[in-house]
């Protein structure tokens, strides 16, 4: 039997518009946060410092492995968010999982205002000694 020779109808201009270009990455953010239950985030601030305590395990997500690699030296949450190009809320979810697994350690930032100025303390000390 002779195979059919041509396609059905000549394709009209309205048929099959070219595919729509879209973003560069097919994955959506909720896939990253999905494993964790929503609404449970560790108390992390933008300036909380994160330090890795272990090498990334083999089964880690690429993002978590990246966090652990980046955090070999202390790094703030804001910096992590910027380097990973992920929103803060996603980073906190990732970090919450890592904290739960004990792979990273969070350290609250030292607030300058909470500590009195050293020169002031010295001056007070001198003044008291003069009394």
């Amino acid at each position, binding site marked *: 039997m002779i*195979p059919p020779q*041509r396609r*059905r109808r000549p394709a009209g201009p309205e048929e099959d518009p*070219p595919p*729509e*270009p879209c973003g560069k990455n097919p994955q959506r953010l909720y896939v990253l946060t999905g494993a964790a239950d929503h609404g449970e985030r560790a108390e*992390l*601030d933008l300036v909380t410092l994160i330090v890795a305590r272990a090498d990334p395990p083999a089964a880690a997500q690429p993002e978590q492995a990246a966090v652990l690699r980046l955090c070999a030296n202390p790094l703030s949450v804001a910096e992590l968010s910027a380097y990973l190009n992920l*929103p803060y*809320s996603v980073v906190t979810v990732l970090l919450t999982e890592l904290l739960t697994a004990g792979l990273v350690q969070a350290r609250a930032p030292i607030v300058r205002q909470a500590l009195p100025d050293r020169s002031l303390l010295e001056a007070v000390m001198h003044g008291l000694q003069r009394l």
Partner: protein
Amino acid sequence: MVSVQSPPDRRELPYARVLLLPALVMAAATGAAAALVAEPARAAVGWCGAVATLLVVATTAEAVRRGRALRDLRAEHRRRTAYLERRIAAHDEEMERLADEIMPHAVYRVQCGNSPGEVMHRLGEIHPSCDELPEAQLSLLGTVLDIVDREEAKRDAAQRSFVNIARRVQAIVHQQANELQEMEEDHGRNPEVFDDLLRIDHGTALIGRLADSISVLGGGRPSRNWPEPVPLFSVLRGAMSRILEYRRIELHSIAQVNIDGNSVEPIIHAAAELLDNATRYSPPQTKVHVTAVEVQTGVAIEIEDAGAGLIPEARARAEGMLERAMNGGDVGDLGESPRLGLAVVGRLCTTYKMQVSLRASAYGGVRAVLVVPSAMTTDEPASSFAHGIGATASPRADLGALEGPKRTPKKRRPTSPRITAPLSLEDDVREVTEWTAGGLPQRRSRVKVPLSQRIAEQTAIERAEREGRPTVWSAPRPEPEPEPDKEPEPGLWVEAFMNGLKGNPDPAALTQPTTEPARVEADDEGDLK
């Protein structure tokens, strides 16, 4: 040819021989009678006998002639009957050929896209005997082909409209997905808003997959196009992000392969449908395991669930559905409660030369294996490994694509980090510039002009006043220009009113020009945590 004629010897029998016997018998009888009767009657008997003989001969001759005519007629009749039977048989055969060979092939050709006229014109290619088809059959064939063609055109139009509608839905969904992504970036600092956005995003992705499925079943091309190669890991995550229960999917060792940008969408869609099947037909507390290994012909993506498995009947049905879809099934075949998944996978596999098989899993469930041909993979480096790390790709401009809703770019109110008061990053060292003799810090007055200069100025002014000269103070202050009666922008008073109601009156609300990018309370979002 069947011989229905009489044997020729009987036919060749001449009349003389046939007539001889009765003539002789009659003649003998007449002779005998004439001999037997008395003398005076002999002449009469002889005459009678002669007449009778003649009559008998004539009768016999007539009978023989009629008999022969009858025989000829009968032979002729048999010949005609045989001829007609042959004709009928030939007609039957012709009809059978028309029904069994010509019509199906002609209809097939029309269904494959040839126009009815062309098919009629080239009937000889189907069967050499088609050229001498009778008029009536030709016209019958033509009518049937016309009807088939019309129905095909109708079905095509229906499918195109399906695809068209699906495209519109897709365009809106893509637009929405893009906007949601922007919003997710904007509100990334506010976990409550962010989580809600993610849920909307998920729902949108589900709608998008349904629209994609309709489009695929209608024969449309994939709606999305990734400009750059994408790693298989991201592709599978993209597939995860389009199903309802993505939390149950676990990606294990995924081969480090990059997928060509044009092939990303079909793989995502096929994998999403298989993942959806896997999660749907397995207990909700079980996980679905996904691995991807490189094989000879490409990459094999294995999806294993821990469900009840396929009984042979269900497996036969599933494979039949795949088979039918691979052979170009119809949207109409899906039935009343369509299970789109396998049909979509079958379609995609046919179009993109992927292979899919359903087997029993070691976990007791189903193991679906999707083999992606190596033609769909690429050696080019992908722009990113995981989400957004190092991503620099920009969407490719592709003119003529169906556009989503046109909206003016939203004036973003990013909940950018506003540093709260107790967390100042600046060095807030108190300004200590002077020390008392005792070593205690001396606060300076905030006025920057030195005291000596201020005293000198004061004395100069006093002297000038005494001498009657105009001073800085006596000079009439220029009356401020009456401000043009500036109508506050509509709506601002509402805001002020609402601010007043909320109990934190914002004194700047009325005077603040509208160039301010965001209202004050917009920044509150970021400080919830």
